[in-house]
């Protein structure tokens, strides 16, 4: 079936097959996951757009994604190395930098993701695509900044008494776990935010507290008996992977890592389920 003779464009096979059947029940898991997968091009396109929009106007572009955490790290390293006595100020700086890079990606992405479905309402009330795409977009878009930051860290390591060696390969699973946990939290919060608009402010306040209960600006060993509690913070294990890659493993990293992985899997499952069940209902509340 050819639509018009002007450009000789014909309907594509795949789109002819499309059948949408809706009733009161949510899509089945299989159907929903399939439609998320079918929209992967849209996801990449939106992520690229998000990235462009964020950095295009700034003179230094994506470098700002690096500059901000670097400045933050320097301040934290200087301040905390005076409060708590450290043996090697440079190695401590590398330790702080590694943690802050991971944290700033996490904080930036979670903040944007948690409001993504509400913020994207101009996209959502006309055309359907799985709403789960919206909170994923900032998580993917911010990966570019994270990668540049990691490159800067790797280059700076030899100057910070670190080691440019095979240990840096740990950054690959570190980034993967960080991305997974950020996605899980972002998906969960964005769904919640549609129903409860105070989530936005709880996230802002929560992240502020969360930063200080995560061993980033201090070493876990300085906490003494409290370090056991900090291990139940799911970000501790993720940050530990980054710190291990930079300056070596902190104590009891296995326990913290296990907490991170388990939390990610459970939270991710819950978040996906919530997104599936509420997918075509969000729009009623926007």
């Amino acid at each position, binding site marked *: 079936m050819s*639509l018009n003779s002007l450009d000789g464009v014909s309907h594509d096979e795949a*789109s002819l097959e499309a059948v949408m059947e809706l009733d*009161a029940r949510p899509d089945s898991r299989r159907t929903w996951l399939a439609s998320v997968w079918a929209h992967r*091009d849209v996801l990449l396109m939106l992520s690229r757009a998000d990235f462009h929009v964020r950095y295009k106007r700034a003179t230094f572009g994506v470098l700002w994604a690096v500059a901000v955490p670097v400045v933050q790290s320097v301040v934290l390293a200087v301040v905390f190395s005076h409060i708590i006595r450290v043996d090697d100020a440079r190695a401590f700086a590398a330790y702080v930098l590694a943690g802050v890079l991971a944290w700033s990606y996490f904080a930036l992405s979670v903040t944007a993701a948690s409001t993504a479905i509400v913020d994207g309402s101009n996209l959502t009330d*006309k055309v359907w695509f799985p709403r789960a795409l919206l909170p994923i977009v900032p998580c993917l878009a911010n990966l570019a900044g994270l990668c540049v930051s990691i490159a800067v860290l790797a280059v700076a390591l030899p100057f910070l008494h670190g080691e440019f060696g095979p240990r840096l390969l740990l950054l690959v699973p570190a980034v993967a776990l960080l991305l997974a946990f950020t996605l899980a939290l972002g998906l969960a919060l964005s769904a919640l935010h549609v129903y409860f608009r105070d989530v936005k402010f709880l996230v802002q306040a929560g992240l502020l507290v969360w930063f200080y209960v995560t061993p980033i600006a201090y070493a876990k060993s300085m906490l003494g008996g409290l370090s056991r509690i900090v291990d139940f913070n799911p970000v501790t294990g993720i940050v530990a992977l980054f710190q291990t890659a930079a300056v070596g493993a902190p104590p009891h990293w296995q326990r913290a890592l296990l907490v991170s992985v388990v939390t990610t899997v459970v939270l991710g499952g819950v978040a996906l389920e919530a997104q599936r069940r509420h997918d075509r209902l969000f729009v009623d509340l926007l």
Partner: protein
Amino acid sequence: MIRLEGVGKRYWQLQERAMLLRSLLPFRRPTRSELWALRDVNLSLEEGDVLGVIGPNGAGKTTMLRLLAGVTRPTTGRVTVRGRVAPLISVGVGFHREMSGRENVYVNGMLLGLTKAEIDRRFDAIVDFAELGEFIDTPVKFYSSGMFMRLGFAVAVHTDPQVLLVDEVLAVGDLAFQIKCAERMREIRAAGTTIVMVSHNLQSIRVLCPRAIVLGHGRVEFDGPVEDAIARHHQLLGQQLGRESGGGPRPSAVGEVRQVGGVTVSERALLAQDGPAHYVESGAALRLRLRVRFDRPAAHPRFTFTIRSADGSLAARVNTPLELAHRSFEAGQDVLVELQFVARLGGGTYFVEESVTTSDGLGVLSEQARPIPFEVGPRPGAQGIADVEGVITLDGVAVRDQRSFGLGVP
């Protein structure tokens, strides 16, 4: 192919903003009330069918389009749509101002369900249609609003949908572009696309859709030929307007207006030169003819005629002067009352209603008014309630539109 079976959609209206902490408490849950935007809607459209959806505001038209677009799911029943759906609902969905026109074509096209390869193939046609030329690589924030809309429309009409949802978007850009859009719509229709069109412009519904449904309070009040649907729509609007205005005249003198009764209107007809008037051109002579019977004696009753536009605003009021001694009636006497007027009105739907009051205007004799609808055809280049018969001249030469285009584009 579109199938709606027993479809209902319920919305919850929250009395107060839901709060996370409060809802976690077992007591003090926010109170909410339900609102059925659609109820028990059954509808079946085959390939190539063109359906108009009309009805008063709040009748559920937007909800229906949202269901067909798959944006929301029904509370009851089942919605089935076969084929790619393209909503021409809001032009330029998801445009990013910082990105170039080219990038936006890709984002927009993908949101409308095209793959990258499909957009590649259509790209030149889209740019050509939007008349953007070399500006396609300029960030859209520098576009004029006309360029912006043209690009959005161009993408939407090039998705080659099997189902097209249209919502009041035909009035995009200048006249030349509107004609092009109308042309493209005709092609899409000729290609066998199922079209569902929601519009307040009854003229475009009349021209484009052979069949229409009338929605009222979320239910399908009528499903059938477009002319009958429009008549039913007018009837519904009239009922709504009658309820809102509460009938009777507005007090023109200080004092309480009270319902007295005592007058029956037995015959009511709105006539044009060649019979009953439903649809007239601006400037047509109309007559509202009433047979009024007085059940009680009435001295010098006052007759008032009110013409309102579809949104209820006053277009014109004609009445016999207050306290004017003209004629008195005995009990049981009847009289033929006629209002003659010229419909120098802008395009749209209007209602005319009458009321009979005592001479001082304070006692209402007639029953609650039942407004009679009529529709005035649009005139290109003129909007508003009044038709001032404006003509624009350049160096003394009138600018006239010699073209005719037949898709109901205003």
